[in-house]
């Protein structure tokens, strides 16, 4: 057993994958000597060399575009986008090339590229450093979008993402990078839950709260608080945003009859929209209230001094839970 942070979980997972397969590369801005601005790649260049841990020029389209070429040559690049708000220059390469090339080739090429994106707010940063843009990629066919919420998942999901033959967008909740947990290093990938499965992290009977990434911890806190008020919340860590694990969601909603979806991203066309629409269609007669969505407002991410107002917190989740129960 080792106590690790979420950031360390990614680092250890990367290291394991690089040791296991010489084709695995790490590339991005400042991932070398600095170890990335969050130190997630700390020590990797020292141990694997500049040939496998590559400080790229300051150009995100170039990072993804060359990663695609490297993948076509048989490499497995893991690209770090320094902050969520800086993935957009690479949007064309991700959406029109990375996501579509396999279908374009009728399956004759694979693009095992992982795009790591530190995501979300709550760290008191300046503009563009706190965004939640998962819906853009979840709406893009050909990509898989996953989001880890804790150190152990981080450790396994980065390895699963690298092992996948499909391009993966892996979201890392930056404000949870320093959260700690115990990792049993004897566990292997075989022991790990499939990357695209959701996990019930707390079972309850009254209301289902579905969250992912940074909001899982917040949802758990809400569940604890609700318990004191005698409400039993079931909390689901979605883990995978595309595809969605509908089976787990359905089973829970059929039990509770109520669903609240929580994310930092703006509500309008955020993940909550798809989950609400899909769950409602599949569980129409089980739902005793409409699916409630708790998320960021439909505004640009605000200045950090007011971000706590923007971000869903325990109270806003409980408010939605109450509205659902009162419906």
């Amino acid at each position, binding site marked *: 057993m080792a106590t690790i942070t979420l950031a360390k979980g990614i680092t250890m997972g990367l290291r394991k994958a690089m040791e296991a397969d010489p084709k695995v590369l790490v590339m991005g801005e400042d991932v070398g000597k600095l170890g990335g601005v969050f130190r997630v790649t700390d020590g990797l260049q020292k141990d694997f060399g500049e*040939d496998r841990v590559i400080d*790229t*020029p300051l*150009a995100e*389209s*170039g990072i*993804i*575009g*060359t*990663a*695609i*070429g*490297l*993948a*076509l*040559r*048989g*490499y497995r690049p893991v690209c770090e986008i320094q902050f969520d708000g800086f993935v957009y*220059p690479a949007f*064309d*390469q991700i959406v*029109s*090339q990375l996501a*579509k*090339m*396999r*279908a*374009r*080739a*009728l*399956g*004759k*090429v*694979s693009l095992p590229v992982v795009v790591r994106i530190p995501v979300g707010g709550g760290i008191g940063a300046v503009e563009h450093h706190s965004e939640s843009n998962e819906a853009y990629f979840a709406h893009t*066919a*050909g990509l*898989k979008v996953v989001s880890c919420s804790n150190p152990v998942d981080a450790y396994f999901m980065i390895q699963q993402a690298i092992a*996948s*033959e*499909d391009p993966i967008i892996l979201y890392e909740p930056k404000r949870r990078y320093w959260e700690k947990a115990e990792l049993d290093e004897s566990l292997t990938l075989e022991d790990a839950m499939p990357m*695209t499965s959701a996990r019930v992290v707390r079972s309850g009977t009254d209301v289902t709260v579905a969250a992912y990434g940074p909001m899982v911890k917040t949802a758990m806190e809400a569940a604890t608080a609700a318990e004191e008020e005698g409400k039993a919340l079931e909390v689901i860590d979605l883990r995978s945003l*595309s*595809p*969605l*694990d*509908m089976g787990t969601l359905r089973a829970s909603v059929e039990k509770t009859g109520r669903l609240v979806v929580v994310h930092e991203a703006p509500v309008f066309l955020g993940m909550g929209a798809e989950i609400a629409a899909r769950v409602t269609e599949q569980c129409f007669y089980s739902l005793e209230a409409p699916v409630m969505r708790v998320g960021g407002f439909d505004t640009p991410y605000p200045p950090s001094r007011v971000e706590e107002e923007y971000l869903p917190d325990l109270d806003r989740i409980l408010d939605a839970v109450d509205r659902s129960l009162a419906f």
Partner: protein
Amino acid sequence: MTDSAVGSPRTAAVSPTTSLSSEPELVQLLTPEGERVEHPTYSVDLTDEELRGLYRDLVLVRRVDAEATALQRQGELGIWASLLGQEAAQVGSGRAMAPDDYAFPTYREHGVAWCRGVDPLNLLGLFRGVNHGGWDPNEKNFHLYTIVIGAQTLHATGYAMGMQKDGADAAVIAYFGDGATSQGDVNEAFIYASVFNAPVVFFCQNNQWAISEPIEKQSRIPLYQRAMGFGFPGIRVDGNDVLAVLAVTKAALQNAKEGSGPTLIEAYTYRMGAHTTSDDPTRYRLSDELESWKLKDPIERLKAYLVRTSKADQTFFDAVEAESDELAAHVRKGCLDMPDPEPLSIFDHVYAERHPLIEEEREQYAAYLATFEESH
């Protein structure tokens, strides 16, 4: 400031060298009249058979192109991007490549595809709309056509970085057009290639037009000079001279393999036809420009040379004609025989691994389609 100022430590200043108005000469080994001329830096030494082979390539790719255009007119293709006029640029560079080298084309590199041994029918599939390409890029080291302008130059650079890591004795050619030089991706490719010293040759076919926009809308200096700004060599070659293109591309590939990094080749040529079969060039360019370029035809000049030097006789030319007719027939028949994709093929190959949503939608759609079967 003057040219001599470039990089001269005294001033640490640079200024434009040639303006577009004063076009520099270009590397040429075969004049439009078919005369063989020498160049101080570049040369080719080809057997008569190799020379005839190049002629054959030029004629065959033009024939395939003409047949595809005809098929489009007859409604068998949705659209076609003709290479008419650019045969020498494509065959010269295509034949410069070794089997282990790799090409990243745009949507117009039918001549390069031919040189790589890709059956033209693969290309027609895309333009007919039965697939988006679908051939195996690794079979002939010829990547899928890329339609998003410039995107493939980064793929080519990344692939070259991979070759470098593998220590392979091979290099990549990234194909793109004059218009593409304005895209951020292409300039980022120049940066990555130069910083990592990747074995990639940037082969720009300057056919003078980006749909309706003349080269002046993309650059105010000759395009080959763009390389200067990134610290690697750039050179302009007569894109209608298959020998010069072959020589210059061979040299650039060799330099790349020897570790000298990227080169930008500007193949100076002309788009003799419309941008695609959907385009109407009469709206934006004058026909006399076309006339003047007709005199520089890449096939005519090689034929003139072969005839004058009696490296080829009429029987050879007749044979090539006959072969081109056969090839055209193969293309036509193969095109008409292409089956439309199955409805449910829409769901194939989106992911390598199982995907519940795709499977759900496939099943639902199959069931939906079945309801019609029943109703008939």
